[in-house]
């Protein structure tokens, strides 16, 4: 059963607690599988794809309206845009990388707002799905970060210097290097991009699953009995979780670009 089918199933509202033969329709992986809205050349175009485009569009439209005709005395929207831009620029990029980070500001700013809006799709009515809960989206961006990280490392330090930068920590006694160098090598080159993608994905995945679980439960538990109490509790939890998810959505976007910045900073670091 796909997410759409489940929604249909729930919308029919046939199944409640205490009804004979009615188990709890627990959400699972099916929540993250979507039937294609339409298919082009054998490739299905599904809801997360649509939402990622909507997210990109929202970011573009917002910054277009805010920044396309900027004024020295900013309007309200420009001011909001400036605050957001300044936040990412100063407290993430320049704080992490320093003055050399100026070049990477546009990339990190775009990444932050794109990821954040994709995450926020989770609580927007009718969208109600965090795009980043599909691994392909954070994985693509993490891949980009990884390519940037590697390119900068080897461009700055050369091949040997780059390798040294990646796996030769300074100020460590020689014999520890036997253990540390492979770990550093593995960690920096393979684990980093993987964790970067999985962290964002798993947080959004779990958050979405929780919200869906309690939403379904609210409906399932609703019946003219003690179930009404269970249902209202479940509903209250849903609301609380939604508020919590709003925070997590922001935090995950923040952490994603923060780590990306720190990788870039590591690549640009002087050889030691």
């Amino acid at each position, binding site marked *: 059963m*796909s997410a759409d089918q489940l929604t249909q199933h729930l919308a029919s509202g046939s199944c409640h607690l205490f009804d004979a033969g009615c188990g709890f329709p627990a959400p699972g992986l099916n929540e993250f599988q979507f039937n294609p809205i339409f298919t082009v050349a054998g490739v299905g175009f599904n809801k997360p794809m649509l939402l990622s485009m909507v997210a990109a569009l929202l970011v*573009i439209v917002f910054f277009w309206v805010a920044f396309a005709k*900027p004024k020295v005395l900013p309007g309200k929207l420009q001011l909001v*845009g400036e605050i957001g831009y300044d936040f990412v620029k100063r407290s993430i990029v320049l704080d992490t990388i320093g003055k050399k980070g100026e070049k990477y500001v546009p990339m990190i700013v775009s990444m932050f707002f794109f990821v954040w809006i994709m995450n926020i799709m989770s609580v927007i009515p009718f969208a109600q799905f965090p795009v980043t809960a599909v691994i392909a989206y954070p994985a*693509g961006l993490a891949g*980009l970060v990884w390519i940037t990280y590697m390119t900068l490392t080897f461009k700055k330090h050369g091949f040997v210097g780059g390798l040294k930068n990646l796996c030769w920590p300074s100020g460590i006694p020689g014999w520890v290097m036997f253990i540390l160098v492979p770990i550093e090598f593995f960690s920096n080159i393979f684990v980093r991009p993987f964790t970067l993608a999985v962290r964002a994905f798993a947080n959004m995945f779990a958050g979405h699953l929780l919200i869906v679980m309690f939403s379904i439960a609210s409906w399932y538990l609703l019946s003219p009995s003690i179930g009404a109490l269970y249902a209202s509790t479940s509903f209250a939890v849903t609301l609380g979780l939604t508020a919590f998810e709003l925070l997590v959505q922001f935090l995950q976007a923040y952490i994603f670009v923060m780590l990306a910045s720190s990788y870039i900073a590591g690549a640009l670091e002087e050889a030691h």
Partner: protein
Amino acid sequence: MLLTHIAAASEDFNPLIPKTPELIIGLICFFVVFGLLGKKLLPSIEKVLAERRDQIEGGMERAEAAQAEAQALLEQYRAELSEARHEAARITEHSREQGAALIVEMREEGQRQREAIVAAGHAQIEADKKQATAALRQDVGSLASQLASRIVGESLEDSARQSGVIDRFLDDLEAKAAVAQGASK
């Protein structure tokens, strides 16, 4: 029935394996965002931010200059004011001195005039006295002569005058009077 559907769906679905079409769409979306923001929107806002910073700094510089000018003007006014006060004090002092000098001068002038008047009075009196004395002497001489001629019976008038007897007598009288006057004083 529900459970079998989920199980069936889960078998060929690994949430950790990215699907190529989604990967591509996600990257395209990001690059569109990145392209527009990086090439157009962020540079344009950066320009405005720099402009604003310049204006604020320029405004502050202008304000500082104006303040410095005001400060200088204030100093100048203060200096002028103190100078004016000094000048006024000087003028007051000067006029006071001048007034005092004038009073002294007037007083001296008055004194002098008084002395002149007194001296003139004295001279006048002296002259009058001399004239009166001379007249008196003449009268006394002639009276004495007449008296003597009456007593003696002959005119002594001319010979007495010629001999200066009368004058000598009168001088003696005067000397005695002067001595008496000096003693009474």
